[in-house]
């Protein structure tokens, strides 16, 4: 994994906008990314469907998947150990904990993106229920299909995914689509946008 490509994303999560962080923070980010990756906790489970599962037959999923020949439901995680480390750090060094937290989010996105290259070039980005004001409850049918307890990921009664550095998503196969702010519920009051950046793909801003 090339960590320097992930770093801009970490800076974004940490609230950095126009400034390049100091060398010390930079160093800590690199070390955290290296340590998190060395935990080898990344897992990705999916199930592909040629026929659209029922819960996707509504807006905005229909629009998102229009023109796709099949759809992948996936659950991915950095694992329980990452959570544990972040939590332990919160006791001994809160700054380090916050850096690790941001690094873990960025690393999971990057790892999942890299994994999805296996699905070919013609694919959408990973749409996770909750994006654009969609109901978080839509992760439940994804869980029922993928059964990610096999990789240690569970869903609680309020639709929280555990470990916390995990995602449940939908990838359309057969067309290309990249993330935009277009239908995001936070668009009008997004802190990132105010600063002229995005919460995704910070490197390309």
């Amino acid at each position, binding site marked *: 994994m090339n960590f320097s490509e992930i770093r801009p994303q970490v800076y974004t999560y940490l609230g950095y906008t126009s400034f390049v962080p100091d060398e010390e923070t930079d160093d800590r980010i690199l070390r955290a990314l290296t340590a998190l990756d060395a935990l080898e906790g990344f897992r990705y489970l999916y199930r592909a469907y040629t026929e659209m599962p029922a819960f996707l037959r509504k807006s905005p999923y229909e629009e998102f998947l229009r023109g796709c020949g099949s759809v992948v439901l996936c659950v991915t995680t950095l694992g329980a150990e990452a959570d544990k480390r972040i*939590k332990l750090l919160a006791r001994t060094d809160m700054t380090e904990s916050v850096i690790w937290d941001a690094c873990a989010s960025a690393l999971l996105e990057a790892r999942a993106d890299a994994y999805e290259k296996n699905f070919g070039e013609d694919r959408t980005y990973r749409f996770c229920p909750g994006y654009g004001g969609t109901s978080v409850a839509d992760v439940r049918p994804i869980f029922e299909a993928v059964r990610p307890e096999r990789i240690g990921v*569970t869903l609680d009664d309020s639709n929280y995914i555990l470990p916390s550095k995990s995602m449940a998503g939908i990838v359309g196969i057969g067309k290309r689509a990249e993330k935009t702010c277009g239908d995001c519920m936070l668009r009008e009051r997004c802190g990132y946008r105010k600063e002229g950046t995005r919460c995704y793909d910070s490197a390309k801003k």
Partner: protein
Amino acid sequence: MLRLGKEVKIFDGGMGSEFERLGLDGNPMEYNITHAKEVQAIHRAYACADYITANSFGLNRIKYKGAYGLRELAMRAIENARVAGKEVFFDIGPTGAMLAPMGTLSFDEAYDAFAEIAEMTCELVDGYIAETFSDLYELKACVLALREHSNKPIFATMTFDASQRTLTGSTPEIAAAVLEGLGVDALGVNCSLGPKELLPVVERLLAATDLPIIVQPNCGLPVLENGKTRYTLPLEEFDAYARKFAEMGVSVLGGCCGTTPAFIERIAAYRGMPVVRQNRERTTMLCSSVRSVEIDGVRICGERLNPTGKPKLKEAILAGDYDYMVDEAVRQQEAGADILDLNVGLPKTDEAVTMAQAVRKIQEYVDLPLSIDSSSAQAIEKGVRYYNGIPLINSVNGEQEVMDRVFPIARKYGAVVLGLTMDGNGVPKTAEDRLAIAERIIAGAARYGIPRHKVMIDTLVLTASAEQQLVAETVKALALVRGLGVKTALGVSNVSFGLPNRPLLNRTFLATAMASGLNMPIMNPSDGEMVGTVKAYGVLSGMDAGAETYISLYRDTVAANPVSVAPAASGEREKAEGLYDCVRKGRKDQAEGFAREELKTRAPLEVVNDVLVRALTEVGDAYEQGKTFLPQLISAAEAAKVAFAVVSEFLPKGKTSKGKVVLATVKGDVHDIGKNIVKVVLESYGFTVIDLGKDTPSQKIVEACLAHKPLAVGLSALMTTTVASMEETVSALKQAGCKTPVFVGGAVLTADLAKQIGADRYTRDALEFVKVLQADYCK
């Protein structure tokens, strides 16, 4: 069950994959009623096995939420399995929910769910197979529930991945040791991977226990075809591995996902093969769920979690301040302890309740094995029950009555017991008499079925000032006791009590004791000189091969005194210029020194207002202007917090805090990093934070507000779904007549939404929280 472990037995194969083959795609538990014929047909097809697994994997109240009753499904599952005419094992899978602390399901809730199943079925089945568990703690709850509600055989298997660990990080050795300790009849591995990939796991399991091993691999690694999972390992190959497992000493063979009746028929050829196991030497081992510590050489047991002579810890225990205990545990782990002693015994407290809670809290953060230290059998039982691993029990002595109280607990949970060489007559004067008590303890343990390798002996240190001639007896007794084939422990620092320069006596005694066979000094791991003595002994005794550990620790030590083994701070950091600069730069490690320096020339309140608050304001302003960022803000807050704690020592009582704030992440929400950041920033400004944690029921928040009468209560929610829970909390506070202003925050909150749910204030981030609090709510 006849001849289990003597000759190879056969379990059945995949059930789910058979359903899939039949094109069934509903809830498999309900097939027991809706498709009973199909279920029975599968069981009949597996009748070549010795054991038939009932179709009951997902039958527990946490996992199964459907149209039928649990009992009804369980009865039918057993009836269906009976048609094969073989022994029926009831299948028990995980709840599918994550146990606390990672998740929200408590150990007791998991236990209750499994106990319910055991109660329903114990008279009707021939045994239980708890399988596909990936969390050893959940499996412990399951095995305890089964053992306490039935007397039928229990087989327990876990899944391991390619890293040869379970998903929660347990090794085969740890899983085997814990399950053996809990008294299962056979243990092993199922599902996970194909037989080829499981080979190293099976090897490690066989080497880790004498219990029968059960192996139920998948039919190779899954391949995805058109959204369907397929297992494609050829029958011949599966069979070849089954044979290999039998030859290695595996007692029970079966299959999991993708294996069919044809596979089981084939491997049934190995039924009756004699099981040949290699004899192995049993070692004394303690473990948490992820770390095992073999008591060989010298292992340091941290003694700091014992209230005797520690007023702050005493205060913490009385106040139920588990954070203090956790911090002390983390400090000892970082200082290099191998094991942590935990004693929470204080008069007028419910020691059992405190012990259970302390064990749960500490194992959340620290992965060292614990030593449950108490004279109360109830407290020991609670500690050992909730401990996720194999703890040490500290302690028994030569009195029969004490042994009768404690040994059954050690036996039931598989704990190691520390025996003190004393009895009703006190500590014997001679080494030989102490040896006699040690022998009595080992024999007593054996009568309760506790093997020798699960006993350790403490030959007891007396103070050199009072009983000088007995010090040599303690050391001599160590060597004698080691001759019994058990490991030894000593509370080293007792020796110097009442004499000057105690550290010198302590480390000299430690060196002498190690040379005579001491395995586990119970000592302060933060004492660099004591730890240094242990490391030096490692070199001199040859245990630290090539002096590698020693060199890595002391390579840069120039002065011989004092020795420090504190881990080096990450990276070289420039030194701050004074307290103001120290806070501004966020140098937490230097804050205490600078604060003390500053206090020499300034009044405490001046230091707070002119230095700490000013520095924080500078950083805060820069943060708001986008000139500095979250890491710097938090570092500054942490440095200020350390400094504030120092200054507080000089402030009159009652002036040390600007007031209390209650913080909580609301019920249903488990992400707490935002709340934790608010906490640090509030504390840096001198507020006292009562942190109720995450997933907090509204009732608990109401109680805290009524009890503490804080300046404000801060609620955090991260998702749209938990804002409802926030609203409920706000209204519960109002209903209880609580006038405390409610601050809310979190990713999905806005000022409008805050107003809508009845909160008093919305603050965007930690800094705004402090500003609003100071401006509008502090007199």
